[in-house]
């Protein structure tokens, strides 16, 4: 076995360019999972009935479990109803994407020396897109709920300095420190995107690399154990991503009331 040839690169291998867009090895799965989810959505609308079959009961159990998980984090019925479609869709997409690369034989189909299928979340472009999209949506929801002046007032809290100096010089100096903490929140948003995307990418990509290396050590029973571990990690990372997005959503839509209470 030749390790340097079998290890997938961090960069996706581009096969050809089509109308200015690059078709790479992870493209088929990225769009395939999307189309699969849309078609399944339509089939569910059409075929689910009040008297459920066993498949419908199984899907409903999974739906209830994930709804309760996200609902416990957000802690508010209406907000969960608004946010759960987006967060649940992200969780389902990442769940399918993490697991589909583990099906036997999938990574072996190749065309001209390079595999044509690859786990979509082991490509940093996918995870970065998901993380950036989630954080941008959360900020847009925060702008819509609070209004743009109050939203900008979180990052540039001039009103805190005004109120602080009204109370006295000591409180005013503390308010200046709080102003700089508010400025650091901008970096906090960037860090949210980077940490979400890197966590998912690192888990999936490193899992693939370690699988190749493990085949180099012992090719008989141990890779099966690592495959089970990869399956577990794939499901867990989907749950963690969704739980984090839900908690960022909760923080973005509740902070105003908490800080107003602590001001008085």
């Amino acid at each position: 076995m030749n390790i340097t040839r079998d290890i997938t690169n961090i960069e996706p291998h581009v096969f050809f360019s089509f109308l200015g867009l690059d078709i790479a090895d992870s493209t088929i799965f990225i769009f395939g999972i999307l189309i699969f989810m849309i078609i399944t959505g339509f089939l569910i609308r059409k075929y689910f009935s009040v008297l459920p079959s066993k498949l419908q009961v199984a899907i409903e159990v999974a739906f209830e479990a994930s709804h309760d998980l996200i609902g416990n984090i957000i802690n508010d019925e209406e907000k969960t109803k608004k946010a759960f479609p987006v967060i649940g869709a992200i969780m389902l997409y990442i769940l399918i994407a993490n697991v589909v690369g583990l099906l036997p034989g999938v990574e072996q189909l190749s065309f001209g020396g390079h595999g044509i299928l690859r786990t979509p979340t082991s490509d940093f472009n996918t995870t970065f897109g998901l993380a950036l999209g989630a954080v941008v949506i959360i900020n847009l929801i925060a702008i819509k709920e609070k209004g743009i002046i109050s939203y900008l007032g979180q990052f540039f809290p001039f009103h805190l300095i005004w109120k602080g100096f009204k109370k006295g010089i000591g409180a005013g100096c503390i308010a200046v420190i709080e102003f700089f903490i508010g400025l650091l929140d901008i970096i906090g948003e960037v860090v949210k995107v980077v940490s979400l995307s890197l966590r998912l990418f690192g888990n999936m990509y490193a899992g693939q690399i370690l699988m190749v290396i493990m085949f180099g050590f012992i090719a008989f029973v141990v890779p099966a154990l690592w495959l089970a571990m990869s399956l577990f990690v794939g499901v867990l990372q989907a749950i963690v991503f969704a739980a984090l997005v839900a908690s960022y959503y909760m923080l973005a839509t509740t902070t105003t009331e908490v800080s107003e209470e602590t001001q008085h």
Partner: protein
Amino acid sequence: MDAEAAALIGKGLATVSMFGSGIGEGYLIGKALEAMGRNPDMSGTIFTRMIIGVALAESTAIYALVAFFLI
């Protein structure tokens, strides 16, 4: 020292930061087990939250692993 030797030393140094995540996770699991001992009814909830917490505490070790593969 050529660039290749320095890169390999850098790779080795990047993996040193992973031992902090081991300590953090051990502490977290210990606290979760203690809470489960005090309140056995909530064992299921505590275990689920602990798994999510472990995945979050693992993330700095994963950043170090990504840096290892990038160098």
